[in-house]
Structure formats: C-alpha cells, structure tokens
C-alpha cells in the first residue's frame, strides 16, 4: 500500500485519477516545487473527502513514505483543516480543488 490512510484503494484507477487530477490542478496553480507526489496527493484528497480519515500505524507505513505520514497526521489534527472539511466531506470536486490549493500553498511556502 503506497499511501498512509486506512480503507483507501490506492490501486483503483479512479483513486489514481483523483490523485493525478489534484496534481494537475496544483501544477496549473504553479506548484513546481515537487512537494507532493501522487501518493501524497491521494492522501490529502481522501483526508478531506472522507468524514473520518484514519492513518495506518507508523510501523506499516511503506519505506520512504514516512514524510507523507507525518504530513497527513498533522493535517488531520489541525483545527483549520477540520473547518475546511465542512465543505469537502463526500464532495469529490471540492476535495480536489482544496487539495490542489493546499499543495500549491505548502509547496510555495
């Protein structure tokens, strides 16, 4: 499993498509930093989209994906992130846009 969230089917074509779409919009916003890879973009999307995102235990995180784990863990606990979820839960379009925007902002910070 390349991602860090429980219950997400990372090899599903639609899941991959969603992650790619997030990355594509982020790059159009000017995300050239390469801050997010496909797996992180999927994780950010589902952190916003799912009502209750749950991370897998740290010892199950794939090698090299520990950074993604800590980013997502941090996001989930942030009050601002949670207030964003008022708009994004179970809404794939808004989750996509907010994910892309987040990646853009963090990447350019």
């Amino acid at each position, binding site marked *: 499993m390349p991602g860090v969230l*429980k*219950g997400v089917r990372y090899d599903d*074509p*639609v899941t*991959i*498509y*969603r992650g790619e*779409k997030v990355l*594509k919009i982020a790059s159009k916003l000017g995300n050239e930093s390469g801050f997010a890879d496909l797996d992180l973009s999927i994780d950010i999307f589902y952190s916003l*989209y*799912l*009502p*209750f*995102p*749950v991370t897998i235990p740290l010892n199950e995180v794939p090698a090299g994906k520990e950074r993604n784990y800590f980013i997502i863990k941090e996001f989930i606990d942030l009050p601002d992130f*949670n207030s964003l*979820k*008022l708009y994004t*839960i*179970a*809404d*794939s379009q808004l989750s996509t846009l907010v994910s892309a925007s987040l990646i853009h902002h963090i990447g350019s910070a």
Partner: protein
Amino acid sequence: MLREFLKALQAPFVGRGEEARVVALTLLAREHTVFIGEPGCVSGDTIVSASDGRLFYIDDVARGLTPGVYYVDFWVFPHARADELHVYEVLETAEVITRRGFSIRVTLNHPLMTDRGWVKAGRLKPGDRVRVFTKIPSPRGYVKIPRDVLRKALAKQGNGSVDAKQPRLVDEELAELLGIFTARGFLKPQYVGFNHGSRELRELVERLVSGVFNVDVDRVAELDSRRIRAGRVGTLRLNSQFMADLFKWLNGYSSRRVSRWILLSPKAVSAAFLRGLFEAAGEVSNQGCSVVLKDVDPGILRAVQVLLLRHGVLSAIEECVPGGTRKSVNKYFTLKVSGLENLKRFVSEVGFISRRKREEAESCISLLLNKGGDPSPGSSTAFDEVREVRIVRGLTRVYDFHIPATHSFFTGGLLSHNTAKSAIVRRAAELLNARFFKYLLTRFTEPAELFGPLDIKALEDGKYVRLSRGKLPEAEIAFLDEIFKANSAILNALNSLLQERVLYDGYTELVVPLWSLFGASNEVPEEPEVAALYDRFVIRHFVRPVAEDLWRDLLNKSWEIERELYYQGCLGGGKVMDMGDLRKFHKLVLSVNLEPVKTKLVKLFAVFESRGVHVTDRRKGKSLKLIAANAVLEGRGEAQESDLIVLKYVVPKDWDELEKVNTILSEELKTPYRYLRELEEIKTNVREVMNYVLSLQNIESRFVEMRFRQILRDLEITRDRVVSLMLESRDPGVERLAGEVIAIIDSTADTIRRRLR
C-alpha cells in the same frame, strides 16, 4: 415501445443487457457498431474437453489448418457448441502455472476465470487465484482400432501363420500396456522395446502382451519367426512388426504426449492407462503420504493431471532440481497425489497393478485416517493460486473456439473465456422483421460471397449486374464476423458501404438499404489499411465475459436458445416494432435538444485529450447522434449529463483506452455508478467511525468528549451530503445504498449523543 423492444431484445440472453442496449442505440442512431471481444487463444498443446468428456489436444482438432477462421461443429465442456475455430499466430504468449501445476499457455489478453472475475493472462500475478476444475466428465464409447491399421500392419509382416489376437478396441488391458509403454517404452521400426528395470515389471509386460494378443510369448516368437525375447538385462524387445506398427498408431506422432486414443476413451480405459503408467514410473511415498509420478517432461504429467480429474482426483505438479543446481539437464517434474480423499479416490478408481504398491498406497490411507484426514473440495471447481506467469517470446500458433452461447470452456484444467456477439444482432433483426445478412469473413472470402455472384446472362449482354438476393446489398441489418480479416477488395467496398451506404461495383453505383452494420472482431486492428474501416464504426463496444454468478442462468438460457432455434428456426418473442417505427424513432433522435450537454461534452473532450486519448473530429461530431439516441431510449427529447456515458462506446480505440475513458467518465459524470462508488466509500469510512466510537464510549475524558463532538459534526455534514446525493441521482440503487449509509450514520450519531448526555 422502445423499452419493450429493448426488453424483448435482451430477453433470451443472460448478462448481455449492455450489448442489447448497444444494439438498440446503434439502430436508433442509424450507425454502425463493431464488437471487440477478448481473443481466447490457447497454444496447441492445450487439452480441451468435448461436452461428452472426450479430451483433445487443441492442435489435433486443428491439424493441418493454416491461420484463419474455420466453421466447426464441436460441443465443448462445460456444455456448449463451438461453431468456429480461429487459428492465429502471435509473437508473445504467457504461460500461467498454478501451485498445483495446472498450466496453460495463452495470448496475453486471454481471459482466465479468477476469484475476482475474468482477468487477462498478461495481468495475472503470482498469488492470484484462478478457477480450476476438480472433476470433468468421461466419454462412454470405446475407441475402435480401424481395420486398415491392422491390415497394413499385418501386410507388412507378410502372410505368415499369425494366430495372435488382433485387438479391435482400445480396452483396459491394452491401455494398461500402453501406460507402461508411455513410462518405459520405446519404438523402433521393427520392434517395441521396454526398459522394464525389474523382473516384476518384465513379467507384468509379458503377461499383458500375452493377454492383449492372446499368445504365449515364447511360442508366438517361434511360430511366427518373430522373436519376443528378453534382451540384455532390463530391456524387453517385442520383435514384431505388427506390434510395432500398432504401438506407433496408438502412440501417435508425439512421444511426449499421452496417446490421443486414451484421451478419447472412457474413464475405465484411461484409469487402466494411468494404472500402467503409475505401476511403471510411480511410487508411494510413505513419508509424504502420497503417490508420486516422475518425468523429465511436464507435458505427460499435465495430461495425467487432466485424466485424473475424470476420477475427481486433484494432483499437483512440481519442478524438482536435485542438489539445488539450476542445470536443466538435472531438472525433473513430479506429479503428486496427496490428501486423504484424493488418495482414496486414486486407489479405488485407478490404483496399482502390483500387490506391493497397492498395499503401500492403502497403508498411506490408513495413516492419514489415523491422523484425521483432510477436507476435500466438494464442487466440481475450485481455485488455485498462480505460482508463476512466464512471458514467452517467439512466433506461436494459437487457437480459439468461438462459442456463441456460454462463452467459456475447459482448457487444461482451467476455465477459459470466449465471447460471441452475433445472436443479439440476429435477434434485433428478427424483432424488427428486418432483412438480415450474416457472414464470417476470412482473407479468402470473395466479394461474390457478400455481394452476390455476377449475372452471367447479363454479362453476355454487356451488363455488369450482381445477383444480390439474400446478400449484403439487400440487407437492412448485417453482421460480419471477423470483419478485419477481410481482403482489401472487400475492405474497400465496406468503406463506402458504411460511409455512404453505396456499393461501388464495377461500373455501377448501387444505393443499398443498409440501416446498420455490426462487425465483430477478436482483436483491435493494427494494420493501417484497416484503420479507415475501424474509424467508420462510430460505436466500438468492448465485450466482456458474463459474470460468474450468472453462469447458471446463462446455461439455462443457452439451452432454451438451442431448443428454440432447432424447433422454430428463430428465437420467439412478439414483434413490438418494425423498421417503419425505427425510422420514426430515428427522426426523434435527430430532433433531440443537445444544448444542455454541449459545454460538458467539450470539457470532456479536453480531459480525454489531456489524458492522451485522442478523438478524431469525425467521431466528436458523430458522438452527438449517439447521445441523442440515448436520450430517446430514456424517453426524453432533451439530452442530459447522464447521456454522455455513451462516450465510452465512441472514444476508446482499444482496451487500454477503454479503461482510461471509463475512469474519466465515472469520475466526471453524475451517473448512478459514481454515486454508488462515493456512497460505498462513505459507508466503509462511517463503519470505521462506528468502531472507533464503540471503542471509546466508556472512557471518561475531556479529549474523548471533544473528539466525539467533532465526529458528530462531521457525521451530520456527511448525512446531509448523502441525502443530497440520493436526491440528485433519483436512482433506486443509489437510494437503497444511501438509506443503508444514513442508517449507519444515525446509529453512530445516537451512540455519541447517548455518551455526551
């Protein structure tokens, strides 16, 4: 009326609702469709089973055939009639080997049944579970030895006083001898040899020879000046031209295959063959409580594995490399029968000839009984894990049965798939009372076969006229199978026929009444000369196999189809509309308001392009017709977003693009599929919440309280979203699933509220 037509169209079929819809859309849009099926191609050494249990190496069925398509009348197992045999040559194949050693070599896109449905062989991975058979039927009739075989053999050895019995049938006794011969025998032009290895086996061979040919071995040798004598230690030579010729016939052309006559024989005979084989080359391993057969070539073992299935005995083939060396010269293979039920069946139905081996096998069974035995598979099929998928490069001849009804067949122990598409088209033509023409194209098909022969009398008068009665120029609905296999003369004629509905023939231009032409192919054409014709099919439907849970219904329906076709010549069902009605509906299609979807359509084309899926301008324009047809089929005069789902029939060029397009459409369009998917994701996640809440509900802490309040808020948002999804979709399936999700949300929220009180 349209809905009734659609219902009547799909009524005789199972799991073919989408194909029926494609046919209806094609007719409404007055367009042409090509069905692309998965080519179910297997290599020549694959054993297939006839429905009566006779087994064949598939290249025996196709012996002498060059690549092409051939009509056949062959009933396969599971029970279905194959009506065509397709022979191809490919550059790449995949060899799929399971843990039990079932093996099949197939084209990379050949679908095999797995526990997650049909999967292309090239996409299988070690650990995937493929469907294997644990029991197959057995034929009833004994194989007769043709008289000319015996006559020729006797003629060769002269008219000496032969009082040896000439066997007329491949019976149990002869099969036992052949089993030993397969393990230990060799053939020379003048004699048959056995490397017996032990006195016990030599005596057994002598006894069987004496029984089969009704001769005293020494006496016959003397009387006929032929010598059947023990040669050097360990070798027995039967110096008989007659026996040598008979064994040559029995053994066939390949010493690395089980005799085709054994494969065709009833299970009593094949059991005798196996008994001889296991007696000569098998052993009982008390250590592993199993019966083991060794060979350096896995080919024989694979055939033995299939033959054992007639007795419900499931075996496993393993590759053994002694001493850990990888040198192929030391490599050998073992077939192992293990497990209590398998061993019991083996001993009771196959067994050994010698008392010693019989007793050893029985003691194995006793040992296993004392250990408590093991469960055995109860059904005739089970799953086996894929051990290895090897990609083999090099020109290979492959074969494919075309099975109109059930689409799948037994191949070397595994279940393979095949598709058929013509029946629904024929059904549509019958329901519309339309003039129908169907033909199977090969590169040798002459234009006259499609367009009718030239009128010789008219030609004498200097006129170029075709007698096209009952041929394609007169058809309103046509079905051309293997359409891309046609030669260039036919391909050129079809180009104008599809585009302009005009047949340019010699000096004449013939406007034809063709409404829709349906083509079928087992592969996406890659040749540039076929590209133009492929592009003219606005609708390209990639046909998938029928899901496994529908097989029982499918078999019942197939049987009904066979009966109706036999007794009535066509499938029943009232005529709900005719070609006149179809023309009226087509006018409705042309008047559909497409404005509401044009913006979204343009956006989708941009998304396809950005994902590397190019759509030609011609197809972009033509897609409107199909969108409008979908709206009419749904009873609307105005297109809406859900109608854009038909782009999956217009945009993809091949299987890879189909997957991309399906993904894009499922995410970008508000369709029931998308709603269901989103709801499933929410449902899974809300269940996680429920478990989390239950695990914390008895803990008194401010953190838990704060967390619960936050979850409650998120659940309320989720609930609102689920309700709005339900209202948006207005689909019964979506409503049902949304109801389930809401129930879980409410239950979780109630638990939290109770805790917070």
